[in-house]
């Protein structure tokens, strides 16, 4: 029963089919709910999924943990979507949206389990292409279309690089499977460089991040919430695998230095660019870039602890960043513009939303007693153990810059009392409930981080 290890993948596939049928029957919002339910079932099925390998795919604890993160992101996005789509009158497209998201999810889940270069490329494209379409979902928004076009152009150019990179990697070992055998060593650095371009685009690493703020700003917010977590997690985590199973054993130890370099630049640029932002989604986009810089620091450690820490990092990021984006969705649904001026006095309109936001912002900023502190801490701990003191110091310094813009958002929400747009709708109950739930996880998880840290470390074999 090797295929049993792909149980969640099968379940997502089945959900895809079911969603398609429901959508065909003319009930798009039901299709969304079916998709969410399917995702949830797939998430639960991970508990009983065994290890195994099948057709260049292989599943172990690390993969399952990563798939859980992706499924969690998808479920959260799907749950928040129905009210959002109804509010912005995109219900007709809800079915398509659900399908696109499920395809992406499928791509991500496969990407996690690949052990084969061809499968990697296919999974990668499956993760990418539906997202271009999904980004253009709102057919009344010119910005949405523009963002989608930019997303697409960026994506396809980097796909070309990736394709070449994957090709070179197969030449290195002479087979399509991941292996540490080196037949043609000369292709290794070039292959890795090209791979990094492709993955750099996916995870929004410097200097391949330029699409991110534009797409984040213009795409439907629940999708952005998904987009800001799942593909990044998938990209980074598979990059870890590649580094550990192929590149490092093959003897290219300087790869870690490249990653460290990229980490430093990404941190710096992301944080500095987030500083002057006034649009919340753009701000979160740049902060996301900065966060990738932090995870890359763990990647640069090249250790099993580093892998475990980044699993944990994305688990935390799932709650804090998606929580923040869903919060932005709620703000938009209240009729407010998702800018600093727009959220002025949010505390008075919806204390629950504002306080949850505070939790997310603190978590993203890495303040103690919320989850984000621990994730950032462990990432830098891993980096410190690997002797990357410069990265640790830089990260700590930039954390201060980051805190400036996070606290600035908190200031507008909690401290500023003058509200810009008086007539605001009521906070959307369903989305706020999701947001509060995420905030609850962020806060309570911050008190008992070991609940998440230990499984992550175990999964990474650390």
């Amino acid at each position, binding site marked *: 029963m090797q295929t049993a290890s792909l149980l969640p993948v099968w379940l997502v596939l089945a959900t895809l089919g079911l969603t398609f049928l429901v959508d065909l029957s003319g009930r798009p919002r039901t299709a969304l709910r079916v998709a969410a339910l399917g995702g949830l079932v797939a998430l639960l099925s991970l508990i009983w999924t065994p290890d195994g390998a099948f057709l260049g795919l292989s599943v172990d604890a690390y993969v399952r943990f990563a798939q859980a993160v992706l499924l969690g992101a998808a479920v959260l996005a799907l749950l928040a979507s129905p009210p959002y789509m109804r509010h912005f009158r995109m219900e007709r497209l809800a079915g398509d949206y659900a399908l696109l998201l499920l395809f992406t999810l499928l791509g991500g889940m496969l990407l996690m389990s690949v052990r084969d270069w061809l499968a990697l490329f296919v999974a990668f494209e499956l993760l990418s292409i539906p997202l*271009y379409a999904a980004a253009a979902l709102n057919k009344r928004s010119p910005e949405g279309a*523009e963002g989608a076009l930019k997303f697409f152009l960026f994506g*396809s150019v980097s796909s070309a690089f990736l*394709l070449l990179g994957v090709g070179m990697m*197969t030449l290195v070992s002479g087979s399509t499977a991941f292996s540490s055998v080196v037949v043609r060593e000369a292709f290794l650095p070039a292959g890795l460089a090209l791979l990094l371009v492709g993955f750099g685009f996916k995870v929004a690493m410097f200097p391949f991040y330029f699409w991110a703020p534009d797409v984040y700003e213009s795409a439907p917010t629940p999708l952005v919430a998904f987009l800001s977590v799942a593909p990044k997690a998938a990209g980074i985590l598979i990059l870890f695998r590649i580094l550990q199973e192929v590149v490092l054993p093959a003897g290219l130890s300087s790869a870690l230095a490249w990653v460290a370099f990229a980490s430093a630049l990404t941190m710096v640029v992301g944080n500095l660019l987030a500083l002057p932002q006034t649009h919340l989604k753009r701000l979160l986009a740049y902060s996301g870039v900065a966060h990738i810089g932090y995870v890359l620091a763990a990647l640069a450690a090249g250790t099993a602890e580093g892998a475990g820490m980044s699993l944990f990092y994305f688990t935390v990021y799932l709650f804090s960043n998606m929580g923040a984006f869903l919060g932005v969705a709620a703000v938009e649904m209240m009729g407010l513009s998702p800018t600093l001026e727009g959220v002025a006095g949010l505390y008075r309109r919806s204390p629950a939303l504002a306080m949850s936001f505070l939790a997310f912002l603190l978590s993203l900023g890495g303040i103690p007693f919320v989850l984000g502190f621990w994730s950032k801490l462990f990432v830098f701990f891993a980096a410190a153990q690997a002797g990357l003191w410069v990265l640790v110091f830089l990260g700590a310094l930039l954390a201060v810059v980051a805190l400036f813009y996070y606290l600035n958002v908190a200031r507008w929400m909690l401290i500023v009392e003058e509200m810009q747009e008086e007539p605001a709708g009521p906070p959307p109950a369903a989305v706020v409930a999701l947001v509060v739930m995420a905030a609850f996880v962020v806060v309570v998880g911050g008190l008992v981080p070991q609940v998440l840290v230990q499984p992550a470390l175990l999964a990474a074999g650390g």
Partner: protein
Amino acid sequence: MSFRALLFLSAWMFATGIFGVLSRRHVVALLLSIELLFNGVNLALLTFAWAYGALSAASLAFLGIAVTVAEVAVGLAIFLLVVRLTGKAAADELKQLAG
């Protein structure tokens, strides 16, 4: 043609693609440049496959062709949407999102 010549050709196609992507104004021309980019890569892969007898690279090239088709399909759809909503077809006129 020799291995070197083929590789040079593919590199030239790739570079032209890049240059096209960066310099052409019309979005459709951009799509064509991307096509050129991919084909350059495919040619390189096939060249390697031929030179080293590596089947894997050849099969990758086929995958590449398939993916290119899918991408261009999605890209064209998005382009049509852009034209419908903004009436602009030049890439450098689309700058609502910035900063």
